[in-house]
């Protein structure tokens, strides 16, 4: 893969990072990515990141529930009705339990699959790490410098309290 030059700013707390993200946004400097050891909701909202995974899960829930209900009705009532101790073939109360648990089962599998495909995370994936301290105790922000004023970005990093600013090809 072709490598591009980036400026990396390292912060040691979340407060200056939030301020920095805000400052970059106000100045109209595009921040490529922000890596943090834990989720910071302010940053997520400044970056404008959203996820529709919950909407997908809701839809999976309906699909799971309706298909298992239809399946049980088809198998127990239409395809092969059997008399179990005189109970009605369409024993709906029993179906509710199975529907509930199967829906949970289905939503889990489908959400996991969606997550893996959408976030492109899978076992053994090789990644380029901007700064390995970002999963430990530092907060890392990277900006692409292709076609931009390098000094302006560097200054912005320093002004916002970055403890380290350096260049790296990723």
């Amino acid at each position, binding site marked *: 893969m072709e490598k591009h030059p980036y400026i990396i700013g390292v912060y040691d707390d979340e407060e200056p990072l939030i301020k920095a993200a805000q400052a970059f946004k106000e100045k109209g400097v595009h921040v490529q990515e922000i890596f943090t*050891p834990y989720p910071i909701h302010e940053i997520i909202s400044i970056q404008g990141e959203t996820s529709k995974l919950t909407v997908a899960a809701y839809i999976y829930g309906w699909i799971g529930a309706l298909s298992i209900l239809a399946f049980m009705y088809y198998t127990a009532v239409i395809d092969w009705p059997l008399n179990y101790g005189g109970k009605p073939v369409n024993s709906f109360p029993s179906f509710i339990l199975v529907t509930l648990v199967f829906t949970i089962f289905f939503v889990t599998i489908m959400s996991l699959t969606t997550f893996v495909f959408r976030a492109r995370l899978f076992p053994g994936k090789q990644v380029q790490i901007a700064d390995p301290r970002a*999963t430990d105790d530092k907060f890392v922000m990277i900006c692409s410098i292709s076609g931009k004023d390098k000094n302006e970005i560097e200054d912005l990093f320093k002004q916002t309290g970055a403890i380290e600013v350096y260049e790296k090809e990723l």
Partner: protein
Amino acid sequence: MYKTEVRGLLIEGGKNLGDVTTDVIRPLELKAAPWWKIALMITIIMCIWGVYSIYETVTVGIGTWGVNNTVGWGWAIINFVWWIGIGHAGTAFSIFLLILRQKWRTSINRAAEAMTVVAVMCAAIFPALHMGRIWNFYFIIPYPNTRGPLWVNYNSPLFWDFLAISAYLLISASFWYLGMIPDFATIRDKTTSRIKKAIYGFFSMGWVGSQKEWIRFESLAFILGGIAAVLVVSVHSIVSTDFAVSVEPGWHTTIFPPYFVVGAIFSGFAMVMTLMIIIRKLYHLEPYITNSHLNAIAKILIFISLIMGTAYLTEIFIAWYSGNEFEIFTFFHNRITGDFTMQFWAMFIFNALVPQLLWIKKIRKNLAALFIISIIINIGMWFERFNIVITSLSKDYLPANWAPYSPTVTEIGVYVGTIGIFALGVLLFFKYVPMIAMSEVKAVMKFNKTKQ
């Protein structure tokens, strides 16, 4: 925001973000301690006995157990319910305390979830063996076949059980693994060992901690957490229907589902307490698993113990109030008095009375006392399941059918084997997995400046 000083600091010792990583990873970097190796040997011996007993059960048949026509369910079902109960702690901790916004759960949820996964696996062994012909296990899956009846019976609690346990195992394992992904990435980036970098790197699924990843991670955790909360309640309710939908005296009651769910969370929390005291002591994680954490678990245990006591008394009262002679016989002449007096009172004293000692602050601060009480609760919970299964089955409506029951060496072997598997799982967890959810602890550290 409403602030009180009910609880102490979440993390003691003035730790910073880097210290959390160093402290949590340290046990993984060190060589195994002598006690760990000895414990591993003991658990392997227990596992070997268990595997041999399972081999005997599968090759010879259920005849190797002490069960008979009257007492068709023996230790296997007692142990199944017991393990599933213990397996409720992880989800109860992660989910309920997440919903209740309890930040103190972050130091404990990883271990509780690990315990859940191993306990549910141990539990699943028993009903599978109890089928007798385990190689025909797939008969329970509804698919078109030539056996006739074509489909499974959806009215059967055993089918509900199969579905519930499979779903529970899947969801608890995925929730546990999901939480570990960022921590595996931390180890990958921190360790100097190339082998560890490769292995933890493989399992970290290419995690880098970008905001896109975090928002999807949080969404998925929210989804899995939300549906698992429903599952925690439904799994043990379904286990209770194995009993409640039958017509045995002492089983056919509506109190069973809530009574089982609360009992499960009770034994689960007790097991979490046992494990937390061990982890804290052996790995010097006192700054993370503080006295305040143990104090909080102890308070939950008192509360659940009161519910358990109320449930026991309600059952007894209803048996008398119903005027049903079979119920009265079961509760008054076959549990409180009679052949199973010892087991009944062990259950009542261990679960409803002993935990009341936790009202005393001095006991809540005494680790040895907490440890002993947590073990006593789990023994009591085992006796509860013994009472339910054996007393009702051995003496039902027709005295001509009455039969005694005692377990055989094979049955005991399977049980010891599952304890071995559980201990083995826990030991491997100590050695190879970060015991505390680092990313979650780091996220709550900003709240550590003031007392919670």
